[in-house]
């Protein structure tokens, strides 16, 4: 125990900040894109819908390293997109913090998307129709009615996406690499110190991750408690 505390005192804390930064940014990306995609797919009918749905869910069922492989193909500086981004904007995705965020976003996206869609599907379609006959525009209806009604599902989707993003390992290591102080997240740091047989440092990082996991669990519990309390409100349907 003393060894652990000693190790924590002399620890390089940068992986924590990299992980938190990646987690927060990736969650923000997923939040916006996930909700938009879910709403869009809800409007789709027929074949397009299932194809779109499958594509958007794919990163969840693929091994992260496979997703990372595809990302690497996209963003490599020897490929059109990578060349374009670097030549025009000077943006480097591979082996950069931007790569961390993109990898984490892609892997966490399906969680947000699916939670948001499930939440939207719970909302009575007549609310949309009623809003229209009452003279509201579709975006007014979305922000004033649909989104507030879907809030519990969207909040839990956000928490899940954050948890997934902050712990991402496979795709991140493929796309962003494991550069200390730059792209080395906590998960990558743990893998690396274990390779060096440094179980003490690994133990400190595992403890940090456990604390984060507990906070996430507490948040989910809090949300489901609140939405259960709100279940009485669903009876109006």
């Amino acid at each position, binding site marked *: 125990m003393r060894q652990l505390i000693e190790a924590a005192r002399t620890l390089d804390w940068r992986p924590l900040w990299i992980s938190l930064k990646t987690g927060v940014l990736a969650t923000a990306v997923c939040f916006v894109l996930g909700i938009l995609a879910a709403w869009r797919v809800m409007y789709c009918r027929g074949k397009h819908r299932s194809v779109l749905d499958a594509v958007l869910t794919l990163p969840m069922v693929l091994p992260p390293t496979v997703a990372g492989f595809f990302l690497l193909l996209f963003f490599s500086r020897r490929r059109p997109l990578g060349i374009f981004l670097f030549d025009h904007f000077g943006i480097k995705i591979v082996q950069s913090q931007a790569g961390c965020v993109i990898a984490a976003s892609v892997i966490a996206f399906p969680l947000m998307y699916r939670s948001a869609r499930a939440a939207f599907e719970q909302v009575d379609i007549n609310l949309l129709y009623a809003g229209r006959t*009452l003279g509201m525009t579709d975006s007014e209806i979305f922000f004033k009615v649909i989104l507030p009604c879907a809030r519990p599902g969207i909040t839990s989707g956000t928490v899940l996406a954050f948890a997934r993003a902050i712990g991402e390992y496979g795709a991140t290591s493929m796309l962003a690499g494991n550069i200390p102080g730059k792209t080395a997240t906590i998960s990558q740091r743990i893998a690396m110190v274990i390779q060096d047989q440094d179980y003490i440092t690994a133990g400190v990082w595992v403890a940090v991750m456990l604390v984060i996991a507990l906070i996430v669990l507490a948040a989910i519990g809090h949300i489901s408690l609140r939405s259960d309390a709100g279940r009485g409100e669903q009876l109006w349907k």
Partner: protein
Amino acid sequence: MEMKASFRISAGDFSLQAKMDIADRRNGILGASGCGKSMTLKALAGILTPDEGRIELGDRILFDSRAGINVPARERGIGYLFQNYALFPNMNTEQNIGAGLRGGKREIREKVEAIMERLRLTELSGHFPSQMSGGQQQRVALARILVRKPEVILLDEPFSALDAYMQDAMQQELMEILSEYDGITVMVSHDRDILYRFSEKLFVMGQGCFLRTGTVKEIFAEPVYKEAAILTGCKNIGRAVRRDDHTIDVVSWGITLHTSYILPSQFSYIGYRAHDFVPVYGGRRENCIRLAKYEKAELPFEVNYYVAPEREEWKREEMLSWFVQREDWPLLREKGVPDYLQFQEDKILILREGL
């Protein structure tokens, strides 16, 4: 003002052909569940888009597939009362009513307060839908519609979500609220009593089509179609063959009926309402059915008999219903079950099969 609609709309296997001249004031659409009543209303409101056709309101064209006109629901000026009221669950009464209003904050507030006063909702202004009874929610939904002063109000099965006791009270209340409204109203229901009470003009729907249009009294007196007769509550429908200008063989019941009037040239059914039978004692008279085999059902406020047809073999569902009229109760108590039931010839409904 008048509303004219003629359109075709389909969803999956179901297809609906509508043609309606909606009159000023109160209209009703009577139809069995799943016949496309709600679909018709949704097309009028602009929630669903017809495949082809035209919808006019006064001199405005709301929809015309050929001219490519489709006025969006929010600009049609048509209010829609949903079956489940569709109140926004995240808003209280005041916010619900004001949700679609435009203009300054004060202006909206004044409008909302005025309508809440009128519909006795002021005390409920801070309540959320989940905190209100079905009847109160319906009043809020109505207020939310009326505050916009729509030219048309569409009512989709407005009482189906209420229990029987509340239905009666709410019907009365709705009539009162709407009596001060001078636009067009169209109410859809499968309940003939509600529509009989509500509508001036009635449309009867079959499966995906409009069978009959007329005043309520006309349609109940002459449903013309078998399906319309059933919807107006006619319990006894029998397969019939026209023998000559004055004679009908009612195959299902094994009897023959005579009329003094000339029968229409084509029909395949007759209908007879369960409360129109006249009890007969002693010998057989014209247009009678023998009451040999029967079942009796005593209900709190009525007595019903189910009478077997005069045929060798018949099925239970072919039995005729006789609802004993109150004025006949003393007669039955005194003389017992009658020997025959007589059909009054002017009460016989001559029916065709619908589309």
